[in-house]
């Protein structure tokens, strides 16, 4: 009973998020514009040396752009509710875990689609050769889970606080940094070899699990006054 109602609530929430996204297109569009502007800037300014850029450098650039894009946009899932004055209604009618899971999925879809689109843009503009598609998608998938999980709790924290525009970037930077450093390492491996060993992906999975569980538990404390 409880389980089905949770799933039901999560379903409704995800549907609502996607509907709102479809109507305003504010989330993905700002995400896209922000990261594409950064990429164009990199591409234009490095045009002269682009052919001699190593894969490691390109991977690092990719994650730096995605990192800043996430810092600039991932709090929107909650701050948007606050701006519209719907946060309290959500707090009253929807159980905490349903909200957490719903917002997590929304954030994850945003970052994951962003990773893929930005990846394609990198292939086109920076002439990156990807030898193995599946491991690259796996890295995006695993990495984006961690980013979305931390982003969900921290976005909620920001919407419950005094809501400074830069607050989300300030508080999420140190939390995101370990996964980004790991991702830069692992992406280079994933792009060049079909390696699915635990040694390569274990730490990212560990980060995902720890952050997801911790965020989910802490979210309860935040949600109920």
């Amino acid at each position: 009973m409880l389980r089905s109602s949770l799933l039901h609530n999560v379903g409704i929430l995800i549907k609502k998020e996607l509907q709102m996204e479809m109507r305003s297109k504010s989330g993905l569009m700002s995400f896209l514009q922000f990261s594409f502007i950064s990429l164009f800037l990199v591409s234009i300014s490095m045009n002269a040396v682009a052919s001699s850029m190593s894969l490691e450098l390109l991977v690092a650039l990719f994650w730096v752009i995605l990192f800043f894009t996430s810092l600039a946009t991932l709090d929107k899932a909650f701050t948007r509710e606050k701006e519209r004055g719907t946060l309290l209604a959500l707090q009253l009618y929807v159980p905490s875990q349903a909200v957490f899971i719903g917002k997590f999925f929304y954030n994850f879809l945003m970052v994951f689609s962003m990773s893929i689109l930005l990846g394609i843009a990198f292939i086109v503009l920076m002439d990156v050769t990807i030898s193995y598609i599946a491991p690259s998608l796996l890295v995006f998938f695993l990495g984006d889970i961690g980013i979305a999980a931390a982003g969900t709790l921290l976005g909620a924290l920001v919407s419950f606080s005094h809501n400074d525009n830069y607050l989300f970037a300030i508080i999420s930077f140190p939390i995101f940094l370990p996964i980004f450093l790991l991702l830069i390492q692992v992406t280079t491996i994933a792009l060049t070899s079909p390696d699915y060993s635990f040694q390569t992906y274990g730490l990212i999975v560990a980060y995902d699990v720890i952050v997801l569980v911790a965020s989910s538990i802490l979210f309860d404390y935040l949600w109920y006054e």
Partner: protein
Amino acid sequence: MINAILVALGALVLYLVFFQVPEAEGLGYYVRIAFFHIPVAWVSVVAFTTSAVYAIKYLRSHQLKDDMRSYKACLLGFFFCILATVSGAIFAKLTWGAYWNWDPRETSIFILLLIYAAYLTLRQGSMEASRKAKISAIYTLLSFVVMPFLVFILPRIYFSLHPEPLINSSGHIYMDTIMIWTLMASLLFFTILFFRLLFKKNYLVKEV
């Protein structure tokens, strides 16, 4: 009583560092900085842990007193973290030739500094005391579960210039006996100092 112990221990540490510790191979007398640098870095991690413990206590009890303690631990930790970073940078300049070179431990202490700074920023602005306490506690705990990745895992991935006399995988200690005792005394001194300041009434933060 505790003050007397602190003074005595402090004097002992100073005596050991300046009169007993021999020149270290490759470091000379610069090694003296280590007896300040390692303990303050240790305390900045202890402070972070203490803050997390009081954050859990607050989320369970909703007593503002626990939040005050957690906040105070962070303030002190921030201060010790700056000391660790600065002393480390000077030590690095003297021995490795540059103030900063993104050694894994430099990276982790830098991120700890950022966490402290972010925590203090989060507490700015006017909010109800209970809401402020709740938000801070949650942030402390989330950053606390992420911290092991920085302290223990990144140094294994990236090449480090730091010697590993105390923390290494094989469990051996590569130090002179006198150096170990001096380091232990200094660690004890700074740890007691931290808790003395943490429980000092109306120091830095008004008692709730």
